[in-house]
């Protein structure tokens, strides 16, 4: 009860900050639009697919990419908050430690959902078709990614406490995750060894699942597998980050 109340309190505050300065919300929408307009036609041509089929493959990819890169870097904002003393000011109060994390991560999930919805709707004129229930399941996959990565990003930011250390680390992890997930091109075009490596990338499962859902196959095994893997990883990441929040570092 207290956890829910405190989480809501932090969420409201964070949401207010986003709405007051929505630059990053808008940037988050514009970037996938670039992919949609400037890379989509190339993708379609390269794979020699009809429009609907091409965008059913392509849009899930850019949605997962948005989920990863829209939330993986949220730790930077936390470092600013740490520096301003805002975090310490909340830590001397009885406010729930887990809520300090969950309220922020919830903000990240909600902004991602808004961005993803806009991208999805804007893809319809390109020929994207999908069933609503499948899309909702796909959004659940995206929400899990967002929750996991924002918690991870906050946890790492709390440990490093410096943008100079955070940026190279996140890029070093983020780029291979992107390349090994089949976001830009489906992994079945990859040589066997690369495909084997990508099997170990949970986001590769997420991309497969989202594609299956947009293709209208909610029964595809990749869907439940992705949901299970992502849910487990999310629990681990949130648990670890929450502990970092509770524990005092310096």
């Amino acid at each position, binding site marked *: 009860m*207290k956890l829910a*109340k*405190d989480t809501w*309190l932090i969420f409201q*505050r964070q949401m*207010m*900050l986003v709405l*007051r*300065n929505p630059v990053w919300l808008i940037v988050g929408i514009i970037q996938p639009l670039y992919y949609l307009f400037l890379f989509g036609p190339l993708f379609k041509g390269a794979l020699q697919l009809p429009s609907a089929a091409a965008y059913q493959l392509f849009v899930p990819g850019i949605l997962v990419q948005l989920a990863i890169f829209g939330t993986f870097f949220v730790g930077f904002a936390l470092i600013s*908050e740490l520096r*301003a*003393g*805002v975090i*310490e*000011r*909340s*830590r*001397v*109060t*009885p*406010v729930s430690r887990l809520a300090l994390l969950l309220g922020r991560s919830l903000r990240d999930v909600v902004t991602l959902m808004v961005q993803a919805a806009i991208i999805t709707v804007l893809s319809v004129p390109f020929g994207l078709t999908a069933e609503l229930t499948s899309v909702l399941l796909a959004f659940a996959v995206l929400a899990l990614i967002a929750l996991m990565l924002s918690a991870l990003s906050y946890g790492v930011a709390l440990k490093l406490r410096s943008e100079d250390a955070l940026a190279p680390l996140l890029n070093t992890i983020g780029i291979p995750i992107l390349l090994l997930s089949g976001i830009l091109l489906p992994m079945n075009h990859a040589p066997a060894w690369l495909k084997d490596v990508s099997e170990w990338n949970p986001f590769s499962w997420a991309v497969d699942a989202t594609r299956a859902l947009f293709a209208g196959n909610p029964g595809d095994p990749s869907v439940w597998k992705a949901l299970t893997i992502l849910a487990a990883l999310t629990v681990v990441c949130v648990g670890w980050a929450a502990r970092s929040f509770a524990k*005092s570092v*310096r």
Partner: protein
Amino acid sequence: MIETKGLRKSFRARKGTVEAVRGVDLTVRDGEIFGFLGPNGAGKTTTLRMLATLIVPDGGDALIAGADLRRSPGEVRRRIGYVAQGGSTWDTVTAREELVLQARFYGIAKSTARARAAAAIDAFQLSEFADRKCQTYSGGQRRRVDIALGVIHQPRVVFLDEPTTGLDPQSRAHMWDEVRRLREEGMTVFITTHYLEEADALCDRIAIMDYGQIVAEGTPDELKREVAGDVVTVGVNGAAPKAEGLLGGEGYVRKLESSDGGLRLYVDEGATAIPQILRTLDGAGVALASIELHRPSLDDVFLTKTGRSLRES
């Protein structure tokens, strides 16, 4: 109000461990302004952060406003306020929004939180800028907002970490008034500073910390008296030997030295010693050229206790 025993904390650094706080025993009484004085790096902030539940002590115990620091930090949090050195506001929100949020962190309902924020804006004279964004505030305004945030839940004890560092003299005087007002409202104020004048003028009692330990504790006057007493310098125009003979036997004179053309007398309290000195010399017909009272400063106390001057360290 605060009682600590053997509070310890060390940090791992590149070159082995640093013992930041090595056994602090303190007693802070109900309703006093307690000053925590010491050079930078003495362990003041670490001690304060331990008492404010921000870092967990390696050893020792503390009872704060009746709550046990080790066993129930949550209860301590409810009863204390803490104002950090580096500020605590976010640039793109207003002081009023920050005050409401902070009150709600303590579980205060929304409408009550709004009323509390309005009252704090009045009490700390923030109304002129409370609805502007925090990024537009001056250093002094920011600091007042920080303090208002720290006491929004009306705690019994408030910890202020160097609240006047970096402020201009006028803002500093204003801050002193705020601190005194908090005490009048019944709060116990625990304040760290490295300004001797501030500790002297503002605090009811002080503790001096150096290298992670308390080296002295008491009222500013007690500490000064304990160290040196007052010094009265008397100029007697060549009658020094006679004056020395007259005053040397007086009970209130602790020590006597002759300096060029006069005498230095070490006494417990200069204010009562001076009339006696005047009477004795006058009675014996010694003409007095000058008389001067030097009261020891807290720097003298620090010098005696640590072997170096606070101003140099």
